[in-house]
């Protein structure tokens, strides 16, 4: 942080100004001239909150991807399929048992077990063969996508939010002031805020366990030099299996989350695979804070894009990726190796 400020005083100033402007735009009532150019404040705030919560979802998907890539250099292009599979299984569990929270546990275990299978049956056999891994995982994603289409059909599924989470909640943020002088406060779906908080907690827990625990130490050592680590007697294959299971389970959990505040359908797997690709390319491969930053940027870009330039919202995310690649090929927070 301090390094960054010392090295880039200009960019620090710009970032500080942008953050100040953002805080002002969130909390202060907007002057009329402002409303004319940017539209109503409510729209802006909704786009902002949607963007941040979407970013939280993207972070859940992409952090598993980037963790697996960072440690094992495994490119798992079946990651999107794990997401969608998790969503479908979560839907079935939540529908039959009626317990929303139970579906998270079941999905984490089941999809995590799929991850173990993938790691043991596929990736261990072709360690270090990038292209082959890519091709095999593409093949797996095609087969899994068709099997899922076979079993669950082409319909849209949405996981019902439990009662204690449904409905909007009033936030202490003024969107407009009525002519009578009465302030109108922003209302926002409670479940999205819960998911946002939960992903921040998960992200923080990941950071903490990576930096403060023994397993985290092993993982970081493995990222830096895995041959050396296995030479010191660590059974690195076990660490690999563990990380893969965790990353896959996280993708599955993200599927339940995505199924709750968006919907599940064939094609969502590719969408989320692409999203996590873009997120980790923008944020930097193998970096958890990078995934967080990238997810936030992409989520915001998608939502603001769909509000302020609806036609090209999807293209905007790819544009961000291209710009980042052109100026910083290793990603915003990635390290050059």
């Amino acid at each position, binding site marked *: 942080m301090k390094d960054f400020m010392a090295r880039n005083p200009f960019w620090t100033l710009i970032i500080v100004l942008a953050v100040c402007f953002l805080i002002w735009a969130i909390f202060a009532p907007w002057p009329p001239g402002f409303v004319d150019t940017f539209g109503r404040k409510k729209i802006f705030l909704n786009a902002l909150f949607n963007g941040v919560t979407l970013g939280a979802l993207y972070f859940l998907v992409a952090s598993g991807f980037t963790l697996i890539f960072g440690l094992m250099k495994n490119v798992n292009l079946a990651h999107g399929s794990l997401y969608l599979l998790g969503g479908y299984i979560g839907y079935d569990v939540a529908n039959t048992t009626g317990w929303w929270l139970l579906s998270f546990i079941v999905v984490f275990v089941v999809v995590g077990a799929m991850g173990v299978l993938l790691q043991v049956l596929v990736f261990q056999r072709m360690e270090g063969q990038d*292209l082959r891994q*890519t091709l095999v995982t593409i093949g797996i994603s095609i087969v899994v996508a068709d099997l899922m289409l*076979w079993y669950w059909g082409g319909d849209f599924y949405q996981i019902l939010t439990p009662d204690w989470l449904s409905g909007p909640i009033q936030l202490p943020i003024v969107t407009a002031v009525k002519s009578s002088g009465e302030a109108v406060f922003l209302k926002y779906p409670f479940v999205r805020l819960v998911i946002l908080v939960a992903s921040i907690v998960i992200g923080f827990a990941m950071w903490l366990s990576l930096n403060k625990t023994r397993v985290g130490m092993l993982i970081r050592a493995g990222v830096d030099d895995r041959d050396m680590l296995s030479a010191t007697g660590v059974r690195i294959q076990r660490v690999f299996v563990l990380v893969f299971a965790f990353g896959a389970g996280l993708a599955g959990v993200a599927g339940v989350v995505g199924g709750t505040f968006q919907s599940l359908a064939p094609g969502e797997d590719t969408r989320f695979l*692409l999203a996590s*690709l873009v997120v980790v390319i923008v944020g930097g491969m193998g970096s958890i804070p990078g995934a967080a930053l990238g997810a936030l940027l992409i989520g915001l870009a998608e939502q603001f894009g769909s509000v302020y330039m609806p036609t*090209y919202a999807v293209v905007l995310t790819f544009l961000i990726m*291209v710009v980042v690649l052109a100026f910083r090929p290793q990603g915003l927070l990635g390290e050059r190796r």
Partner: protein
Amino acid sequence: MAVTEDTGTAPINGKPQSWWSGLSLASVPTPYWFVGAILLLLPVLVGPFMLFQVFGWALILGMIALSLMFLGGYGGMVSLVQMSVAASAAYMLAIFGESAITQISLGWPWWVAIPIALIIATAFGTLTGALAVRTEGIYTIMITLAIASAFFYFTRQNYVLFNGFSGFNGVTPPELFGVDWRQPTPFYYLTLFWAAVAYLSVLYVSRAPFGLALQGVRDNARRMEALGYNVTAHRIAAYVLASFIAAVAGILLVWLNGQVSPGTAGIGPAIDILIIAVIGGLARPVGPFIGAIIYVLLRTFALDFMVSIGLSGERFQLLVGVVFLAIVFWSPDGILGLWERWRNRMNSTDRLTGKARDNDGGSEV
């Protein structure tokens, strides 16, 4: 590289040779004559449906996959953007030339529209390449995949230029020399001609100094840089050639289908091109064509096959996926690799001297 072992055609012994000196008829290996004869006589052997929808399509897909094979096999850069390059050529032809969407199409004559389409598509592919070569290996795949999907979404959303979701239809080849090129037999010969040109030019480039340097870059970029080669320039130049081949194939594709839409270059088709190239084998230029024939046959007849074994025909993707998975799992170098290993097992007796293998080394293509 097996291709460079063939000293009969490659002037690598230092003596200056004119470029055609290796092209005397006697040096063409027997399988070439055989395959060439079959391909030329095909209109007599099969019906118009097979000719147009199966072999015409396979040759076009083979050309696009060939451009991927050139980048992947000789340059070590697996690019998923080739289908988008082909589709951009198709779009440009529809925009500058004639189509049923008269409010967008400019209706310029074909001898203006085609060169413009080729130039723009090649420029698009080259730009993508320039962006992709900033990264390496697996990153290239991801970045080109992302660019391919950006192209798909952009064309789907843009109505001013690309006519959005429905794209363009009614794009037909010009009637030249009194021949209707949309008819199966003339169109087949047209695609066969361009496929042969693309195949031979890739074969030629792979043995020319540029191709050899490119293979050097693939094997050890650092050493090539130390030897004074401009690695980035070689890679981008490879993208130029590959994009041009893909662009030519794109123009043939729009004539074959009569239409082009965002779905032409969706994420599925982009990955299909990779599948085709890998099923055939990324090591030889002939691989993509073999892969394309297998893919098209699967695609055309999988339905009947699935029904005959008691599954519903909708599970076509499953069949393709399983075949693809089996091939990449057990033979990473594709069908050609399987064939080669089988042949080696048949006639290799002495692994130390390799004598038994030498006598049919000339038949390698």
